[in-house]
């Protein structure tokens, strides 16, 4: 109670002395942790480079501008590949995330004790690993190329989409499901008439949202060999062809802006 007496007068403080001590302790611990981390980073840094950084940055900027606009003719195919990686990957992921979400939702899972934890595990493990790592893994297994990129994006997106979907499924109105059950409908009919219509807006929103993010992620997958514009980026960086690099960055920026615009438009229309 932040009201207490001190020398016969009632005073009010936002925190009691005890709470203040607790707060202080928390802040101190936080600060110490930060200081430790900073010192670790500092130790691993070659500070000479850091002081030299502004000069290097300026140097790179000079070399990178103006971008090499003619290079764009060579980027046609990579851009097409990047869009495909994102789109096909998202489509595959959605097809798989749909059943996984149903298995993971408390109200639709056939078995809370066994199947639900497995579905949740699938979701967590696919979400926790970045698509770049999945790409590395797939390239080691099935070789470089667009196919590896598509599968990498698909795997990563399953967890993301399934999580949002199962949260939507758990929030549906049960009375609609009850009503459809009362007509004598089979389990699948109850799903098609009672559950799916309720989660359609969420589904469409998640799909477009993830596609937008996947466009961004697909642009860099090429850096490890999984196809798309990242390959060009990687090779240009290796030879330090800065004007090409800046052009590629401009193209990536344009792609991101367009995909975000499409995503916002579609999500606005669905609601």
């Amino acid at each position, binding site marked *: 109670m932040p009201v207490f007496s001190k020398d016969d007068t009632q005073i009010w403080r936002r925190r009691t002395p005890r709470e203040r001590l607790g707060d202080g302790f928390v802040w101190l611990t936080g600060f110490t942790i930060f200081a430790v981390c900073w010192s670790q980073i500092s130790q691993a840094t070659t500070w000479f480079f850091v002081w030299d950084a502004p000069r290097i940055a300026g140097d790179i900027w000079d070399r990178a501008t103006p971008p090499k606009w003619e290079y764009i003719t060579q980027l046609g195919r990579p851009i097409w590949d990047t869009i495909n990686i994102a789109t096909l990957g998202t489509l595959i992921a959605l097809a798989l995330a749909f059943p996984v979400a149903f298995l993971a939702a408390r109200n639709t899972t056939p078995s809370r004790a066994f199947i639900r934890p497995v579905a949740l595990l699938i979701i967590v493990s696919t979400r926790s690993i970045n698509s770049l790592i999945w790409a590395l893994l797939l390239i080691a297994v099935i070789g470089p190329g667009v196919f590896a990129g598509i599968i990498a994006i698909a795997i990563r997106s399953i967890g993301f989409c399934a999580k949002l979907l199962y949260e939507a499924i758990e929030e549906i109105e049960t*009375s*609609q499901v*009850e*009503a*459809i*059950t*009362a*007509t*004598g*409908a*089979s389990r*699948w*009919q109850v799903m*098609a*008439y*009672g559950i799916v*219509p*309720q989660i*359609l*807006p969420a589904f469409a929103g998640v799909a477009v949202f993830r596609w937008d993010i996947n466009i961004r992620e697909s642009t860099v997958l090429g850096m490890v060999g999984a196809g798309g514009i990242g390959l060009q980026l990687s090779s240009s960086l290796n030879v330090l062809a800065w004007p090409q690099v800046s052009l590629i960055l401009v193209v990536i920026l344009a792609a991101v802006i367009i995909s975000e615009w499409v995503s916002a438009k579609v999500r606005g229309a669905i609601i």
Partner: protein
Amino acid sequence: MLQILNLSKTYKTGDQALKSIVLEVPKGQVLALIGPSGAGKSTMIRCINRLVEPTGGKVLLDGKDIVTLGSSALRKARREMGMIFQEYALVERLTVMENVLSGRLGYVGFWRSFLRRYPQSDVDEAFRLLDRVGLLHMADKRADELSGGQRQRIGICRALIQNPKLLLIDEPTASLDPKTSRQIMRLITELCAERGLAAIINIHDVALAQLFVPRVVGLRFGEIVFDGLPTELTPDKLNEIYGEEDWEATIETVEVRQR
């Protein structure tokens, strides 16, 4: 036609919602179920079509015990019982026609229902029902564009298109204004008379019940404490069912209306 024998429902928490209910509903009879909140009215209705699983007793629909049926036989039995809900329970994002036709889900296979290819006889019956309740012009509107009274009428169509023998109606007027409530009750009783349907109407508005139905059953703490004509519902009886209250006001309003 419907016989309920010693129906009981005890929840895992030890709550005894229904204690050995015995009730018989002959063909074509409409009865009202009244009682205070928590008396078990909703539970009883849901036990009849096993949306809630009874823990004891039998429910015989034309001689067949519903409690012991396996899942596909249960679905067939549910086709014969149409249910109408308090909050209408329409699938909001689907159109009125789809909601009405969803009453035929028990008769139509998955793919036909998924592709919305219902037999023409079902579609015709849907048109006829919508016309009967006065909502044919709204057939392709989304369910969430309708008012409360209109939604309840669609709920009634959905229940009737099943061609049921029995209607289970859970507080149909709880969310409606007084005038619409009367319209809905009138519609329900007229339709039951037209089709020779039996109905169990769970209702909390005693005056409304007395106005429209020929038989009233009162439930209190999971047991039937009254079963008779609406005119037999004296203030004493009502006290037994609901507890102490000034019933004179309620009864008087009914008499005034009936004049």
